[in-house]
């Protein structure tokens, strides 16, 4: 499955898209990404599934669009 990342997370993941093995929960998704990119643990971000900002109990479908979005502060 493909995960799109935004903002500073692009530098941590070294790409704006990351390909990972399918997982069906937000918690597993987070674990998978943070294991591969440990610096993610030091950043806050929200996760959107199919363009909806999701809670930790939401389920992921194989064709779901996933996004990791950090806060921005520039202005």
């Amino acid at each position: 499955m493909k995960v799109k990342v935004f903002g500073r997370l692009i530098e941590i993941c070294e790409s704006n898209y990351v390909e990972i093995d399918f997982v069906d929960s937000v918690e597993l998704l987070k674990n998978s990404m943070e294991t591969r990119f440990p610096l993610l643990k030091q950043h806050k971000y929200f996760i959107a599934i199919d363009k909806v900002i999701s809670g930790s109990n939401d389920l992921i479908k194989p064709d779901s669009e996933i996004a990791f979005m950090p806060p921005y502060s520039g202005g």
Partner: protein
Amino acid sequence: MFSPEEKERYSRQILLDSFGEDGQVKLKQAAVLVVGAGGLACPAMTYLVAAGIGHIGIMDDDTVERSNLQRQTLYSTNDIGRKKVNAAAGRLRALNPNVRVSEYDFVLSTENALDLIAQFDIVIDGTDNLAARYLINDACALLKKPWVYGSVYKFEGQVALFNFPLSDNLRSADYRSLFPEPPPASSLATCNEVGVVGVVPGLIGLLQATECIKYLTNETPAINSKLICFDALNLSFESFELLSNSSDKGSRPLTATEFHQKDYMEYCQSKTDGSCEINTEQFESIIKDRDFEIIDIREAHEFSTFSVFKTRHLPYSSINIEQFRSNGHNKIVFICRRGIRSKLLIEKLKSENVNGVFFSLIDGAEGWNRLRDSNFFEKGHVKFSEGVDFLPENLSTTKRQ
């Protein structure tokens, strides 16, 4: 209601079926507070005033710098050194003398926020820091006022209309729906730290003004309960739905008394781990001991020369974490312009399990220079050379699709 001059001035928008003279009346009766007068606020204020907002309040305690001019288009070269609120107000009054422009030459605080925001119909967030953003969010929640969030990072931007009335007792999502508590300050970067292309805050500021005008004229806001993300490199917009019924509002104050007691600067700063940061006094002590190596990680274009004590210049963009691994046990103080990149570098070193004692100078070279008076430097201490805004990093290290 409108003079012949005003009818001619606003004729193109009055022509719009869904806007008409009714929409123009609503704009004239509206009051908008713009917090911050930088890259987001300049385009937002320009178009709000041009459109005929009745009253605009400009709040900022900053002065115009040369490095602002690339994106803060209300200011000219002759304005350098002037108060932003004065320079902006002058330009806006010249653009449309029918608009009442109020100047607030101070920052938003818990002391003034509730009284001030209560005088306006909507707030535009033109700030560049989390403390101000959480303060706006919480004040607007208490006052049941909508506000338009905007923020940028390099070539990307976000915009959302928050706290919009959905019904008598229900408001749309707010910033705490995204981030109930502030993220670590070290995980964020301002335009001064990482650079920005001027058109990005320009575009986000225009979107903020657009949603503000639509809200005030009762048009359905397109981004109600949505966060819009813009990517200039791909020229793409994506929208994410926000859940307005999110119950986790973090430590948002529920009463005016709680709000007044909250120190937002400390609240947002306290989210850093703090373990690797040292203040100027601690830094002075380290200079005397000569026990630590001091590494300036600013880019070459950010400073010219300095050095009373021994330092090494190692631009952040050229650093390879492995070079610290080969040095055995490190004792290093990292200095950057404002203490953000230096802290980020230490986080990277720790996450890669590099041995050593690492410190980051709080507020970096800018903070050091601000605190040291001229006598201090005459005694033979260093004054860091003035930096310029940090330019966008080389994007070749990241892949984009």
